[in-house]
């Protein structure tokens, strides 16, 4: 106990030393004041957080000693098929019971579900850290924006073109870096994300620079129509949020099904084996460079899909939607949800988009919380909120086996 108290005191002193100049000092124009109130409040928070972590540590140590198993997680309690059925039903009827604001938020959630699952291929399955993922989202969005405003290409045609161009961009940036082992990819993709943003910002003749591109058409809907000229195709633009919601839903469901099939395919297993041990994977005959490139390109495809839809929904694109923060946000979704876990990522996407909407006052603290949560997750629960079965087995093999025996 005394040891704990001494540790607590050291941590508090340390925190005080680090916080007091940053929090207290108020620099104005040639003025300097010191504010104690804020410092005291934050120090209180630090003490509470430390206490909570210490209690958690003590509790888990106790649990380990008494061999008691943790209760089944959320994923196990709900029968999977039931769960998916309820989720699908709610998703289908949702726009009819919501106002426009809620529909808008829901569309955002669906876009981020697609983005999170796309990045999940790269990070969760293949184990490659991509920090410039939003660049492919930008490529998709600008592809549709440019094709539509310059050549009048309709949404449904631009969608596959956007995917192809995103995939090409993925191959272009992936090829030189994926030949390397390890984590250079992270920094190169970070740089690539910045390059894309800088180019979008400065290539005024094509991208209109920071002003962005206006006048993008919404997705069209075609239907047969009888007129004086005989049977022709009628055409309306889908601008109502309810219908846009359904398009987003289709894209999200496509991504969910696609990523799920990939996960359980030969290719998915090859990715996981690369993530676990690249040398071993190569020795079992996997063409690791090709597989990594494939993961990277497929991830880009889903981002391109989401990006084209985003441009069609907002009908306006500008570079400030594609900053590093967005890449970090998508990465947060993957990490919090659980790498490789589809239900986890859906839950995390919903949480990360909806929570800041609910707690508007705390919006400034959003990224602070996400950054802190990312590190905390890695330290305390690297498998995420709803762990993928494979990954849980790998991280907590003994406990998971014991639990499964108990269930059987």
């Amino acid at each position, binding site marked *: 106990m005394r040891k704990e108290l001494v540790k607590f005191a050291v941590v508090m002193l340390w925190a005080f030393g680090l916080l007091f100049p*940053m929090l207290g*000092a108020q620099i104005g124009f040639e003025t300097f004041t010191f504010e104690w109130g804020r410092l005291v409040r934050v120090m209180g928070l630090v003490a509470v957080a430390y206490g909570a972590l210490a209690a958690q540590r003590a509790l888990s140590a106790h649990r380990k000693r008494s061999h008691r198993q943790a209760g089944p997680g959320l994923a196990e309690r709900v029968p999977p098929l039931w769960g998916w059925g309820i989720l699908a039903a709610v998703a289908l009827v949702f726009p009819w019971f919501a106002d426009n604001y809620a529909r808008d938020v829901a569309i955002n959630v669906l876009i981020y579900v697609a983005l999170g699952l796309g990045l999940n291929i790269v990070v969760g399955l293949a184990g490659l*850290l991509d920090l410039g993922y939003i660049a492919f989202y930008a490529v998709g969005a600008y592809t549709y924006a440019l094709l539509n405003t310059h050549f009048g290409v309709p949404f449904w045609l631009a969608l596959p073109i956007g995917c192809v161009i995103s995939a090409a961009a993925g191959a272009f940036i992936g090829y030189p870096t994926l030949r390397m082992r390890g984590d250079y990819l992270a*920094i190169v993709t970070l*740089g690539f994300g*910045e390059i894309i943003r800088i180019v979008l910002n*400065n290539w005024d003749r094509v991208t209109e620079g920071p002003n962005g591109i206006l006048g993008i058409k919404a997705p069209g809907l075609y239907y047969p129509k009888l007129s004086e000229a005989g049977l022709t195709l009628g055409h309306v633009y889908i601008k109502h949020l309810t219908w846009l919601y359904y398009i987003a839903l289709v894209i999200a469901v496509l991504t969910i099904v696609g990523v799920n099939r990939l996960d359980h395919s030969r290719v998915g297993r090859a990715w996981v084996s690369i993530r676990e041990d690249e040398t071993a994977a190569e020795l079992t005959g996997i063409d690791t460079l090709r597989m990594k490139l494939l993961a990277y390109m497929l991830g880009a495809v889903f981002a391109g899909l989401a990006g084209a839809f985003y441009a069609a929904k907002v009908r306006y694109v500008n570079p400030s939607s594609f900053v590093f923060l967005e890449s970090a946000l998508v990465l947060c979704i993957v990490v919090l949800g659980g790498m490789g876990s589809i239900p986890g990522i859906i839950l995390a996407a919903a949480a990360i988009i909806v929570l800041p909407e609910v707690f508007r006052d705390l919006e400034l603290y959003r990224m602070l919380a996400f*950054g802190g949560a990312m*590190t905390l997750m890695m330290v305390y629960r*690297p498998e995420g909120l709803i762990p993928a079965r494979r990954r849980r087995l790998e991280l907590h093999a003994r406990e998971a086996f014991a639990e499964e025996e108990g269930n059987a």
Partner: protein
Amino acid sequence: METFLQQMVNGLTLGAVYALIALGYTMVYGIIQLINFAHGEIFAAGGYIGVITLSFLQSRGVLEAHPTLGLVLAFALAMVYCAFLAVALERMAYRPLREASRLSLLLSALGMSIFFSNGMMLCQGVYDKAYPIQLYSTGQFTVGGAVVSYIQVYIFVGALILMTGLNLFVNRTRLGKAMRATAQDKVMSALLGINANRTITITFVIGSVLAAAAGVMVGLYYGSVRFDMGFIPGIKAFAAAVLGGIGNLTGAVLGGMIIGIVEVFAAGYLASEYKDVFAFIILILVLYFRPTGIMGEQVDDTRV
């Protein structure tokens, strides 16, 4: 010719700063194979402590009387602060993950980077904090038509002193030897009685001290600091470390200088709005053609 010389002077100044930051990246990568994303934020924190110290002294009227003392104090406090910050960072986010996968460690580092930069924003606001530089930015002289300000000389000389100190530390002291041994083979050096955890902490501290100095230098050079000022220089410094050969101290200095000079020349002669792009292009080219960097020896799988 005059413009060329002028660009060279500016490039060397910027390069010295990049080199100081790159040293921290390369040392940490050399010892635990981690891209310490939070390094850029430590650099920014150094800049903030510098401006806080100088403003405090100015508001008490000390700075006008003893400008040099103020400067020394700003550097010293920033370096001490960042040393403590680095220890906290290493304890909280990296040490618990010593046995975890590389991806977990990287994500943890990224989380801390986001946490720190947003923390600084919440503490000190989103706007630039101005350095009281009017005291220091008066003097300048010309060499062959190129204008060299005293600040540039201070930065360059200061960086040289720090690098020489680092070189002496790594090559001449027991701790430096322990660092090199741990970087080469963690298990073997542990068997020989070197405390790996302590050595890693010291590596973090030294890298952060250098970054803190760079932060104050940038504040003095550009006249202000901002919460997100660590992001882009962080990536560029990492590019410099890779260019020089990751894990190699001389390489990091060389790479930093090259990146700084290339950036200034590209901004001057090609297109200034694309100046941030060139470092990344260099990075990608290096990875394409010479992934081990300029000074890098043939590294095996565990290192790259």
